[in-house]
């Protein structure tokens, strides 16, 4: 029972981790290697706000989202838009540069010590039969699902969301329809960064974090999106669930490949999936309504 | 086997499709198609947009694998061979959506065909072949341009030139006349005839019925992935089934277009689309 609960909660959290990554990939065909460090930045912001303003970490989440939204907007509008028509390698390289820069900045600001956001409801939880559900994890999972639903609704129900989807499907056609591509791209990236910020605020309450922790989350995001496919926001939840399933139950099956091999596991998962089913387990090729 | 090898009389099968089907996610793009191409002939393939013509070319050329069925080349099953092996067997193809090497110049584009499509040519020999082929298709004066600096018509010529440089036994041409002016269409027809005279079997996929009718020995009609007719051009074009399924009311339009030579060929080609 406990492993199943752990799996579902972790899977939902992973949806929040990869949601923004999947959006940017699907709409702009950019692999944002800075995605992981966006998450970590979100964690630090939530940490600072929660500690200094004595707010609940779940309220601090909104600060993380807001600040990362702004950061994302600036990065896309000021930097990535200038290279977006270049070869894939250039955008890939560029986001890696951003990753290095942000990681180093975090290191200078906060040192490389482990941090953890102490929640006021730390330790609280419900017992469900033999399983214990931590309240922090439960609320985090709920927030992750709410964010997914909100993104899905925003994309399909609002004019702006539709403009994002249209741009993702055919940039030139969207431009002819009078959509300002640069603004739409900036908005897309900003939303993605804000989602990463939210994931960071949740992460900080569940695990210790430090500046270079981001790389692992980028790799995991990639594996999750590859598993779920680039179809819709809900595909990310599916991918997150599958990935969390592997992470939760692999140590049960192969006790020696437990702790310490997180990266290798993430890597192995996505290479195998890519080779067996290049469009992901559930996915369609592009974001769509 | 056959005593007489001269193209017009010998009827030896060079390429054969046996019950070939290709599905993309459930929908068949090519549906249980069988036919044979005789060595030395020009076989025309027509059909409305989405009929599966390009898919069929890819199944023969190897860029797509059939879901079921067999593709035989000179009696050998080739449907599991990768494209480069088929190229070495003598299958040359063009792409409807042209695929130039954008960063290479035109001469090098064609040279790659000779260098890798044939065995044992040196660099300079391959370049020499490229120059010959470029002159033949009328691209010699643009040899130093880059692959992405060409007009649509010239991109089509480049496709033909590259395939031709491989010295193929069979040449698969996928809508190489689309977008050409009537005068250019006439040139293209002449080129296909001269290639065929050199002993190359040609499978020519085209929208332009006039072109197909004048150049092909036989015509095959695809509709919704199915073969609905296969016969001499005259018979096929007067087959009520074909007129209904493919030409329909647009046939009238085409007749009209033929009376009006000022109207570019592409106009009524689009009408058929």
């Amino acid at each position, binding site marked *: 029972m406990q492993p199943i609960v752990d799996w579902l909660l972790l899977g939902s959290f992973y949806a929040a981790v990869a949601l923004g990554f999947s959006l940017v990939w699907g709409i702009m065909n950019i692999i944002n290697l800075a995605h992981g460090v966006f998450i970590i930045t979100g964690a630090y912001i939530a940490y600072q706000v929660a500690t200094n303003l004595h707010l609940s970490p779940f309220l601090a989440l909104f600060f993380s989202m807001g600040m990362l939204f702004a950061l994302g907007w600036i990065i896309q509008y000021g930097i990535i838009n200038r290279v977006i028509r*270049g070869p894939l390698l250039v955008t890939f390289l560029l986001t890696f540069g951003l990753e290095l820069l942000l990681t180093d900045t975090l290191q200078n600001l906060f040192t490389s010590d482990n941090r953890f956001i102490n929640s006021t409801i730390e330790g609280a939880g419900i017992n469900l039969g033999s399983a214990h559900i931590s309240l922090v994890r439960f609320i985090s999972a709920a927030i992750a699902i709410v964010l997914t639903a909100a993104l899905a609704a925003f994309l399909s129900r609002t004019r702006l969301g539709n403009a994002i989807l249209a741009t993702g499907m055919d940039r030139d056609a969207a431009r002819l329809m009078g959509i300002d591509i640069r603004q739409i791209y900036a908005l897309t990236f900003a939303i993605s960064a804000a989602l990463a910020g939210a994931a960071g605020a949740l992460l900080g309450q569940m695990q210790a974090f430090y500046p270079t922790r981001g790389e692992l989350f980028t790799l995991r995001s990639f594996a999750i999106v590859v598993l779920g496919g680039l179809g819709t926001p809900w595909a990310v939840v599916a991918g997150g669930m599958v990935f969390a399933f592997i992470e939760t139950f692999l140590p049960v099956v192969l006790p020696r490949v437990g702790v310490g091999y997180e990266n290798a596991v993430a890597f192995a998962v996505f290479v195998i999936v890519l080779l067996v089913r290049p469009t992901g387990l559930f996915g369609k090729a592009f974001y769509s309504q | 086997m056959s005593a007489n090898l001269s193209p017009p009389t010998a009827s030896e099968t060079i390429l054969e499709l046996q019950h070939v089907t290709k599905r993309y996610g459930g929908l068949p793009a090519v549906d249980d198609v069988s036919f044979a191409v005789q060595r030395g002939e020009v076989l025309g393939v027509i059909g409305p947009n989405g009929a599966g013509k390009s898919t069929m070319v890819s199944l023969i050329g190897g860029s797509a694998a059939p879901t079921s069925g067999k593709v035989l080349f000179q009696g050998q099953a080739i449907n599991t061979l*990768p494209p480069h092996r088929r190229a070495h067997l003598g299958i040359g193809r063009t792409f409807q959506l042209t695929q130039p090497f954008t960063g290479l110049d035109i001469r*090098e584009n064609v040279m790659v065909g000779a260098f*890798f499509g044939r065995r044992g040519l040196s660099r300079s020999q391959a370049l020499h072949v490229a120059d010959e082929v470029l002159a033949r298709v009328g691209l010699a004066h643009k040899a130093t341009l880059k692959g992405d*600096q060409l007009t649509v018509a010239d991109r089509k010529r480049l496709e033909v030139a590259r395939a031709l440089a491989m010295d193929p036994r069979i040449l698969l041409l996928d809508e190489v006349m689309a977008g050409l002016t009537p005068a250019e269409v006439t040139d293209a027809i002449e080129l296909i005839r001269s290639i065929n005279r050199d002993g190359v079997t040609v499978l020519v996929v085209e929208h332009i019925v006039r072109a197909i009718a004048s150049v092909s020995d036989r015509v095959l009609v695809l509709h919704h992935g199915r073969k609905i007719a296969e016969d001499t051009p005259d018979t096929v074009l007067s087959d009520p089934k074909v007129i209904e399924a493919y030409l329909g009311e647009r046939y009238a339009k085409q007749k009209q277009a033929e009376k009006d030579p000022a109207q570019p060929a592409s106009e009524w080609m689009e009408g058929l689309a």
Partner: protein
Amino acid sequence: MPRETSSTASNSPVAGSGPASGDATTTRAGRGWLWSLLGGLVILGGIAAIPTLGSDTLTSNWTIITMYIVLAQSWNFIGGFTGYSAFGNVTFFGIGAYAVAVSFLSNPKVISPYDPQRPQQFFIGLLAGVVISAIFAFLIGLPTLRLKGHYFAIATLGTSVAVEEIVTQRDVAGSGGLASPPFPPLSLHIAFYYGFVALALVCLLLTTWLARSKFGYALVAIRENEQAAQTLGIATTWYKVGAYVLSAIPTAIAGGIYAYYSSGFEPATVFTSSISVTMVLVTFLGGSGTVLGPIIGAIIFEYASQQFALSSGQATSVFGYHFGSDTLLGVAIIIVAIALPQGLVRVVQEFTRRPVAGGAGASGNSRANQFVEGVRRVRKFIAANGI
């Protein structure tokens, strides 16, 4: 979709948009390759002369610069010529380094540091590194080179991260992968220096050969259009895997020499993605797919980062990616990606290119005009990737 250039196509030398791969093949046609080779030989000759100046700091700085020349040159085989975005070439570097370390550690019978067997252990390790890397590149390349674009990039990036993790967890060459083998003190410290110079020379010759050979044509054709390449008879899989293996081998040798040179290292230093990315960055900076690009890019970037580290008052550590230098690398990447994605070599080519005689773009012959035209072309060239 295809751009209509109709009547101007024959006399306008300037493509509307800078193609991603640009004039990568300029060295292929005509005598360009000869000049590139000569240029490369002059540069390497200059580097070989540096130790005669007698400054130890200078020599050790240029040891690392030359090492990055080798790394960039080898990345160029798969990334520049073949156009596959390998982001994990550091894997081979690390394998090379650990092979040498393990080789020294695996012979406990040799106790005295002056034992004549010692140098032998080094070459055995180097050879083992080459063989293991080549096999590894083959085995990893065969499935992953079927992947395109981002997928290949992240698969290779993941390889290096995963291998680092495994080396750490399996305690290769020491607890947590911390390797400090009993390297014998080398009386001829300069041997490392010339080891790297010789390797760079080999890579230069290999690159020049590649720029003219059938093998090289196949790789460039794959980069420009893989589907067309296959259809024209190129066995793309084997060429790609071949290029990947070719790119792994010098990288592994460099890793082996570095292992001895560093006299002690850990997984985080020889498997760091920063090295992979530096290979990509400097090749882009100079011009990927060109003969001189990786050499020039590596010199400029590594020299600049060493100067930066000095002026900001930090110790120049060999892989000083702890404080500040990651920031420098990040900033350099952003600048290069925005301003120079085609590389310096191609910008110079673009600037010096003469318009076709009688072409629309040729305005007068005066030097001033030519200069202005050149600047205009370059600006257009640089801005080509934005929206």
